[in-house]
């Protein structure tokens, strides 16, 4: 790691702003320049958008750029690329792959999605059955994926497949980068309980993927996928927020503005959740402080679980605190949003959408298993699928 200081980074930001004044520079041009200056994600290697600097110095860069009114890369729209695809490519990709994919990923020119879950393999991801068969210097892929956010606008996907059905399930997987414009890739909207189709089903029929688009070794897809999943959990609920940031602030504001909606019971619940939100915020801060001094604690896996619990309790409370408006819904039309808009929609949407928080990115049940086994060291449940070839597993 380099010995860059906050002041060094401020100077580099100043250089960037001087060479590319945000007011007179086209947005994409500015983002590309920022990437090339190593100010995209400062903890990444030099030449790949970073400077090998300590991760927490990114905050300095963001603050300076925000002050100067510089455009951002709309991180929520490209969250899967930033949070999941990029760290996986960084760790397992070839130099060529890193050079090709990371820059347009970061600038948002190319949106990424994640072809992981299948109708028959959600929490038990390693049970997946999408087949990849080698044919010369490419692979032929057939199967169906589901719950794929932003597949309809994605240019690329990270994809896990079954490449060998004759070995136990964790051993026969291979991981690819899939071009979503290739023949045989079909994306269909999957309407969800909120009315919109934020997710998709993705059908893969005879899709040819060059071997050069493989990430990691043949048969090592599970190991690669683990990196993606660990990063996914860190990405969710890992941001620094001010007190009363997010939903708790919204609910608190309603409480202050609408005295006629108050009841003693709601007051009690609101205060409990206010405390819980503040505690979660402090725990998140503590986690980031641990990461910053290079001592990552096991708290990370707990934060996503805490986030889901809190979001669901808060959105439930918010509807009750909405009076007669709690009975209404803002819009049931089928929409295909590019990102989740929790704060921009109504309480009914928030309540329904938050139900996904305990399912997406690892169900709360699976996270509890992970915490109890990997953090607390409790023994695992007896496993019946561990030494059985994938093809012989009941499904």
């Amino acid at each position, binding site marked *: 790691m380099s010995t860059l200081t906050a002041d060094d980074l401020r100077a580099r930001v100043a250089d960037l702003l001087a060479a590319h004044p945000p007011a007179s520079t086209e947005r994409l041009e500015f983002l590309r320049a920022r990437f090339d200056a190593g100010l995209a994600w400062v903890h990444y290697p030099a030449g790949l958008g970073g400077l090998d600097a300590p991760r927490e110095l990114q905050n300095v860069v963001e603050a300076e750029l925000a002050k100067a009114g510089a455009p951002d890369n709309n991180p929520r729209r490209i969250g899967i690329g930033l949070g999941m695809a990029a760290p996986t490519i960084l760790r397992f990709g070839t130099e060529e792959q890193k050079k090709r994919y990371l820059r347009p990923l970061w600038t948002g020119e190319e949106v990424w999605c994640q072809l992981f879950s299948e109708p028959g393999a959600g929490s038990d991801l390693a049970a997946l059955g999408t087949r990849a068969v080698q044919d010369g210097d490419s692979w032929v892929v057939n199967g169906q994926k589901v719950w794929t956010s932003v597949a309809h606008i994605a240019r690329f996907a990270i994809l896990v497949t079954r490449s060998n059905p004759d070995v136990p399930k964790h051993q026969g997987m291979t991981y690819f980068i899939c071009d979503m414009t290739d023949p045989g890739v079909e994306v269909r909207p999957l309407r969800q309980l909120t009315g919109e189709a934020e997710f998709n089903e993705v059908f893969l029929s005879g899709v040819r993927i060059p071997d050069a688009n493989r990430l990691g070794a043949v048969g090592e897809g599970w190991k690669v996928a683990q990196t993606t999943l660990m990063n996914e959990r860190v990405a969710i609920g890992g941001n620094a927020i001010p007190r*009363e940031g997010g939903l708790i602030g919204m609910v*608190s504001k309603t*409480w*202050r503005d609408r*005295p006629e909606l*108050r*009841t*003693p019971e*709601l*007051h*009690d619940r*609101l*205060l*409990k959740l*206010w*405390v*819980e939100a*503040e*505690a*979660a915020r*402090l*725990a998140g*801060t*503590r986690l980031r*402080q*641990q990461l910053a*001094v290079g001592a990552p604690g096991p*708290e990370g896996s*707990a934060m996503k*679980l*805490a986030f889901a619990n809190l979001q669901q309790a808060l959105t439930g409370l918010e509807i009750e605190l909405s009076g007669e408006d709690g009975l209404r819904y803002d819009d049931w039309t089928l929409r295909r949003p590019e990102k989740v808009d929790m704060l921009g929609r109504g309480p009914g949407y928030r309540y329904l959408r938050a139900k996904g928080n305990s399912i997406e990115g690892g169900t709360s*049940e699976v*996270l*509890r*298993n992970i*915490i*109890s*086994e990997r*953090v*607390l*060291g*409790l*023994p*695992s*449940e*007896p496993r019946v699928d561990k030494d059985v070839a994938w093809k012989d597993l009941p499904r």
Partner: protein
Amino acid sequence: MSDLLYSEVEEDLRASVRDLLTDQAGFTSVLARTESAEPYDLKLWRTLATDLGLAGLAVPESLGGQGASYREVAVVMEELGRSVAPVPFLGSAVLATSALLAAGDAELLPRLAGGELIGALAVPLTSAPGTGFPGGVEANTEGALSGAVRTVADASAADVLIVPAVGPDGPGLYVVEKAAATVTEAVSLDLTRRLADVSLDNAPSRLLASGTDAEAVLRQTLLVGAGLLASEQVGVAQWCLDETVAYLKQRYQFGRPVGSFQALKHRLADLYLEIVSARATARYAADALATGIDDVPVAVAVAASTCSTVALHAAEQAVQLHGGIGMTWEHPAHLYLKRAKSSELALGTPGRHRAALADLVNLPPA
């Protein structure tokens, strides 16, 4: 943003306190003492207070202390929570000492900070920060105190009492020699933190602070107490989790270690999550008290309400998940349950702290 981690110095302090407590406050000796004529381990107290200098950790060196801060006191509290050691640390090193510190007393403070004397704050242990000045004791024009205070923490081990009393000129804080008071040991729910009733009949006293000063000192003292008690509760909760996890790994039922059953694993994962949050709030409160930022009342209310609830939940789970053994007198779990339930009431219940918070963060009642 505050530093919510433990410094190296704090970790060293933790290690030395834990070593001492492991050595001198093992469960069987703690349990044996609860039924003896000497419920306090004053030998252990002298080692902690005098040899290690922990009674005056947050007291400036010029006043006979160590010149550290409430962050370090919080670490000691965590370890005392882990061991439920029967020493008057909360009453003397936290409550009485911080009252003297807030009052700017240079006379008695060095003797408490050095461990020479043990003090106690004569308020019911249930007193919450920000509630009204207690009116149970009256001071006459000569400063002689009369009245009664129930359920005072650590009073029976104390040499001096810091007594809030109302005199002809309003509220005041007074120092009373234990010998001038009648202190009657109560039967406490918490076997390792003793309570006593104090009655005063024309007891001579020395005035420490009066009027709004006295009110401010008492409010600050109770804030410090509640904020640091949160760290003790984190220690209690962590012990309960660690001990329960260890037990579930070695206890077999239905041909499997009990800890391999998902139903139990999920409960422990939830408990772990609660403790992660509780520790963050306790660290924030300790740091806020140490640095004296404006956010102290919010930090304390958040920590106190969170940590009380988490410690109690942890202790209740520990008893349940130990099965029958958890119900026995010989297993330590009950001492932690008793400490956790008592601490839930101490220095403000979670509900009282949330009510205080409603005011502080402008979320008025219905």
